[in-house]
């Protein structure tokens, strides 16, 4: 079986790229670091890849707003290439800062490049937060995730993760099954309570996909829990699936399609 090729997009301030690289490699993909300058200079092309992955970090310092400057850059220089990639064959994942970038390009939720329909605003707590919380997989259009209702522990590390949009947009996102992950409490119910919902996101939304289900954006970090010892309480016991299965399934899907 051929290994799906993953473009791990880097730029100034990307900092969760190495663990994402490792996670893709562990689950059978062939990742490559690509600097946005290489795409702009056309020494590397997106069509060489099956998956585009935008890692977490603080691209350009998150100046103005998180992921904003990179989003402006992508919209200005790589519009056609990314639209082409998304329309034809590619899968896209944006984690944390990658999600912030995707939403600010407009790729999420409705694949409208250059037009924002939703935003990721500052956490309700007013500060950056690094902790472990629980999310539940929702029934969604995401093509590579099984509809599992799975609940698992996952890391969040962000200051601007509160999804916000006009009510009709939120409704549309919900009605069209674009919500992929929700923050849940100890009973497994979606929650607005801090810190289980670490940012106050509307409807406890933690991750969404576009209408074709090929682009996923999420605030929590699935790549930070692909080995048992990455979990803070691995010495107590690790229950259920690890969130690494998001990346695992993505690779599997890319392999089979």
């Amino acid at each position: 079986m051929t290994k799906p090729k993953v473009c791990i997009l880097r730029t100034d301030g990307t900092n969760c790229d190495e663990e994402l690289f490792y996670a893709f490699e562990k689950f059978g993909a062939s990742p490559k670091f690509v600097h946005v300058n290489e795409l702009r200079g056309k020494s590397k092309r997106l069509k060489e890849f099956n998956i585009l992955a935008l890692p977490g970090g603080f691209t350009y310092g998150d100046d103005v707003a998180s992921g904003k400057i990179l989003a402006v850059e992508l919209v200005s220089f790589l519009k056609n290439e990314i639209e082409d990639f998304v329309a034809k064959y590619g899968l896209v994942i944006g984690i944390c800062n990658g999600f912030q970038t995707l939403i600010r390009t407009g790729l999420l939720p409705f694949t409208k490049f250059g037009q924002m329909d939703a935003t990721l605003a500052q956490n309700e707590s007013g500060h950056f937060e690094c902790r472990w919380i629980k999310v539940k997989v929702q029934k969604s259009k995401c093509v590579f995730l099984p509809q599992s209702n799975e609940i698992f522990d996952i890391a969040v590390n962000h200051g601007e993760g509160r999804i916000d949009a006009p009510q009709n947009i939120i409704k549309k996102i919900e009605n069209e099954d674009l919500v992929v992950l929700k923050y849940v409490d100890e009973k497994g119910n979606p929650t607005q309570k801090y810190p289980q919902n670490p940012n106050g996101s509307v409807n406890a939304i933690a991750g969404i996909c576009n209408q074709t289900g090929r682009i996923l954006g999420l605030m929590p970090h699935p790549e930070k829990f692909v080995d048992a010892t990455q979990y803070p309480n691995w010495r107590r016991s690790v229950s259920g699936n690890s969130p690494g299965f998001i990346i695992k399934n993505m690779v599997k899907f890319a392999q089979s399609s």
Partner: protein
Amino acid sequence: MIHEIRVISKSETDPRGQDLLEEIRRTLKIKSIKNIRTAKVYRLEGVTRAQALVFAQKVLVEPIGQQMSIGRSALKGAAKTIEVAYKPGVMNPEAASLIKAGKDIRVNPKAADSSWEYAFFGKLSQDELAEITERLLVNKTVEYVVKTSPKTLLITGTIGDIKTIPIRNLDTGKLMELSKDKLFLNLEEMMILKNYFQKIKRDPTDCEVETIAQTWSEHCVHKTFKAKLVIDGKNKEPLFSRIKKTVKNNPALIVSAFVDNSGVIDFYDGYAICGKAETHNSPSAIEPYGGAMTGSGGVFRDVLGTGQGAKPIISTDIFCFASPNMPPKLLPPGCLPPDYLLRKVVAGVRDYGNRVGIPTNNGSIHFHNDFRAKPTVAVGAFGLIPKNRAQKGKPKKGDLILTLGGRTGRDGIHGATFSSGEMTSQTISVSGSAVQIGNAIEEKRVIDTIIHLRDLGLIVAVTDCGAGGYSSAAGEMGQVVGARVYLEKVPLKYPGLAPWEIFLSESQERMVIATDQKNLKKVLEIAKLYNVEATVIGNFDGSKKLHVSYKNKTVCSLNMDFLHSGLPQRRMVGRSKRVAIGGELPSVPKDLEKIFLRILSHGNVCSKEPIVRLYDHNVQGTNAMHPFGGVDFDAPNDGAIVRPILSKPYGVVVTHGLNPALNNLDPYWGSIWALTEAVSNFVAIGGKIKDAALIDNFIWPFPDEESLAALDSAVDALCFLAKILKMPFISGKDSLSSTYRYPDGRILKIPPVVLISVFGKIKDVAKTVSSDFKKVGSTIVLVGNPDVKNLGASAYFDITNSSSPSIPKVDTKNINKVLESISQAVESGQILSCHDISEGGVATTLAEMAFGGGCGASINIAKITKGRPDFVLFSETAGTFLVEVESVQIAKKAFAGVPHKIIGETQEEEIIEINAGQKTLLKTPIKKLKNAWQKPMKEIFHQ
């Protein structure tokens, strides 16, 4: 012309405004303000109004939650409005991003800036606004209140002259005048300078004098640590040689010690790991946010500047402040309030470390009111490097000197000399230029670039551009072969710097590399890929001189020999002075629970979780032991373990120890305590001391006779114990300026700090253990020998206003045996959980283990010893542990021949029960204890 764009949130409140409002209510007790809203102000210069509008719509404002206005105020109906901006010349890191985004959308502003406007709603007097501005909003060192909009954002200036200093004709009075507040050299050193230039028959330039002053500064050359000492009439070996000798305690482990920017030890599979800890006290005292940022940035660059470039993988932070609740009248003139310092230092560490993407996963905070004049802000960094790139190459004649990264500005002038001086009420106004705001993303770019260059073998040598700027980087790299620097080639932030300022500036985020001429093209290509500016500024010329010019004019021409060896070894005299403090022991408490709750709320004991969660301690995905764990993820672990190579089980273990309150009373036993505490933390989580090395940081008052004797005693203590433990020191730093001089001449000595960091390797992270209780019904063992008689400077004595000159004595005879038994039992999987006993005593340790276990525990202290029960519970003896094992039999076997006591067991009911024989001393619900322990920092950090 400048276009002003203001962006506000559509909602009536915003988090920044709410946070400020809460802080005003909490610290200033002003309750009449109803709401605070904030506007981000952007200024664009050199674009049309139409372009500014495009820029605003595409980059600055998001209509979903925000609205904007151009050229007018955005927030109507406020009682008062003020705008706070960085002063011109202080680089706002956001400006570069604004320019970049402008280019990307083909609107090219000549200059851009951003700032914040605060609108206060409700009632507020002018005096109250002034108080808020001064105490919470503006740090005058780097910020100002914008009264009228600036006419231009472009900084212009004419180049300063090269001045000659007529040093040969200066008398002693004039020499000292030249030195004061600028060079910080003493008369003897100034005389050496004068004599040298008399001998070579010319006067020096300003640049030469400045270069020599920084090369000879205490900060760079460690005159005290290298001095011949006479302590209490006895000749003693220099402190530094004593510390260096500990390298012999475990030479096999060491790759390099005391020769590079950090100490390097062996790791696995052809890798090495390195570590360094630095202090950034003086800058943090006057500008805590910027000071903490640049402190972090500096220590990361120390790691990056090790060998041919190491990758930073862990960051640690250790702070000492006065108590946040200290009465304001105790605050010395010219000093900032401790709660402000605490919040701002934490914010600086957060904003820098998080952005660079290095997990901040170990640290601690200590409080003592004698830190009111100057905090201790220590930052550590640890790195990974291929072993075959862990040594620097020697630059040869013809190799190029390249600068990489940030541009050079006037910032940081006199940083090295300034941090070597004592602090006075004038320090803030005189030394303001020593502080700067870090640009974390610039640093991240530089790290990515250097690691890439290193892996391609393009770096001969690399060093950071810290204290002393290019003068120290070029001076050190070219020490043997000689260096030539052309200052006009150096990229500047703004024009107008005098040549000596370019050479001495300590602008952040710059690295200097030596590279072979033939690799230049490749180096420049790679730097460009990462958006890093790289410029050749000189070469190694074989002259054995430091020759610096500006547009063909010689600025500096000094023999390397004089620069690096011209300073004679000092001879210093110390005299120990024992101040006997009249002891006043606490009366036997009637309500032990109340005491216990107060201890749990003590600043040195309470949970620091709200701070740790602000730091990205999980970036890089390498943590194998997080700072907090347990059922609710809120129980503290004793140290950090990371797996720097994700596909391997190998771990890097990092811990630390310090206790300034103890050092204040007894430098010898206080230092023994600090080192024991550091290694106990290390062993408690599964580290083995034979695979670990030590880093020392001495943060000491100015070495007068008494403080010098105390320092001597501390070094003796550390060397004595390091020998017992067979552990080497491989890196260290001293900062001997913890002295504050009041305007009336009175002196305040800040408590001396010995900070010991431990780092080492472990073959398999699966063989490590956390602090949370794992099971109900398991056996709790106290391992080690607690000193239950001496509680001087303990949290218990502090809250009861008691005192005693006698601090806990570590059982140095048994320490190796104790540590070894824990290591073995962890490795063989017999220990379920382990937690070292420190501040707050065995009672606190027990409670913290139960917090994580989601269970209770019951112990009987009569099993420990017969002493006073309160003393037994709250004694803070380093080198003692609480351990959870399956059964009494396992405990007896694992700790045979080692001092240990089986004291109780874990239980389902979530209660801590402490008995003395038949008598129940305390029976308190876990929840109540946890609340007391969590409350203080939650309040300060609004969580």
